[in-house]
């Protein structure tokens, strides 16, 4: 099929098998290797991207699902003001250990910060519950997102 979609705010198109996973399209056809594959079954969240603004595991999304949709990857988020804010907070808190899960955490955290942003630990935990960090550095990840929520609130004052 001819697949047309918006990738990180740019219109793109390619000829592709309709069942090809969005994860593979991003990595192989567009070189966006920030999106990682770990479990490949939707359990770990390492391949999280935004599809029409909502977080999904791109290993379970097929080309046909992305047709005429907006896709934003961790690379795209890193260019956005709230993405930069999150990255600064992850950096200051030393939240990143091996880093493999982090693009996924960035996407889920960004979705929470943008659409809710309340500095509420329970809500943050729920928002990140689809992402797994096998270095188990959850506390610092939650601290970073909490910090980003506070900073966003200050900026909006």
């Amino acid at each position, binding site marked *: *099929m001819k697949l047309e979609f918006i990738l990180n705010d740019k219109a793109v198109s390619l000829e592709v*098998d*309709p*069942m090809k*996973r969005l994860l593979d399209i991003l990595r192989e056809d567009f070189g966006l290797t920030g999106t990682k594959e770990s479990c*490949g*079954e*939707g*359990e770990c*969240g390492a391949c*999280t991207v935004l*599809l029409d603004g*909502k*977080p*999904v*595991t791109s*290993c*379970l*999304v*097929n080309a*046909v*699902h992305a047709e005429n949709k907006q896709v934003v990857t961790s690379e795209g988020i890193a260019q956005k003001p709230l993405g930069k804010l999150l990255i600064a907070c992850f950096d200051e808190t030393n939240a990143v250990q091996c880093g493999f899960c982090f693009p996924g955490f960035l996407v*889920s955290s960004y979705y929470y910060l943008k659409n809710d942003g309340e500095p509420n630990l329970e809500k943050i935990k*729920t*928002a990140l*519950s*689809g*992402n*797994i960090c096998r270095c188990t550095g959850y506390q610092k990840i939650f601290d970073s997102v909490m910090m980003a929520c506070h900073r966003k609130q200050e900026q909006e004052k």
Partner: protein
Amino acid sequence: MKFYKPKNLTELFQISEKIAGKKYFLAGGTDINVQIKKKMITDEPIIYINHLEELQGIRETDESIIIGSLCSYQELLNSPLIAKYLPFFRASLVNFASPLLQTMATIGGNIANGSPTADVTPLLLVLDAQIILMAKSKMRHIPLRDFFTGYKQFNLKKNEIIGGVQITKNAETGYKTFYKKVGSRKALTIAKVALAGLKNSEEYKLAVGSLNEYPRRLSKIEEYLASTNTPESVKLEELLKQEITPISDMRSDKDYRFQVCLNLLLEFIQI
């Protein structure tokens, strides 16, 4: 694998009719893509349906809420109609899968996959949901409890698809409600045991997941509880042995599943 993308329902039935053997309908893809990865699906034809408007959305009639089979869990959670009429149902959905899967996973897919541990089915069973089955020129409603006939076996005629689910607006009104899913962790867990229950002064409705070859109502226990004011745990245990057939697998063993189910049942009686 052969791939089809019908323009509408009419075309879907035309395509489906022409395929004699096994075929898969691709909705949100959260189960099918896992099955492809595990080589459980290799070259069977795939018919994409997730874009079909006829199977989307949540509507109300005077008496019922009709949920299209392609409705995602996120749409259910965000629906003002569900929040207004079925708050227990909505609250129980919050911990299904994970926020990432809730975006894509559909209610019709959850039922169609036919897993004994499907999260939504015990809830729909106690809400006395009807399943809407659509064929080329016919549509029928049957109680969901009559839909399952065995492990991944359905009361489904040739070339029929799941069109949606219908729940009456007062399905949970006036009932005390209970839903508990027990797994290894809170999010993203596949249930070892799940129990959904409704009760009022006259009747009890109970359904379990992960304990039989398909989720089902516990009719004998419902009748027993309705017949007595002082249920005995020995009697409950005896009836439960007749109603469930837990198995041992990678997630848990049968004795544990039986005990947890009994404990949940006793907890339900106390509410």
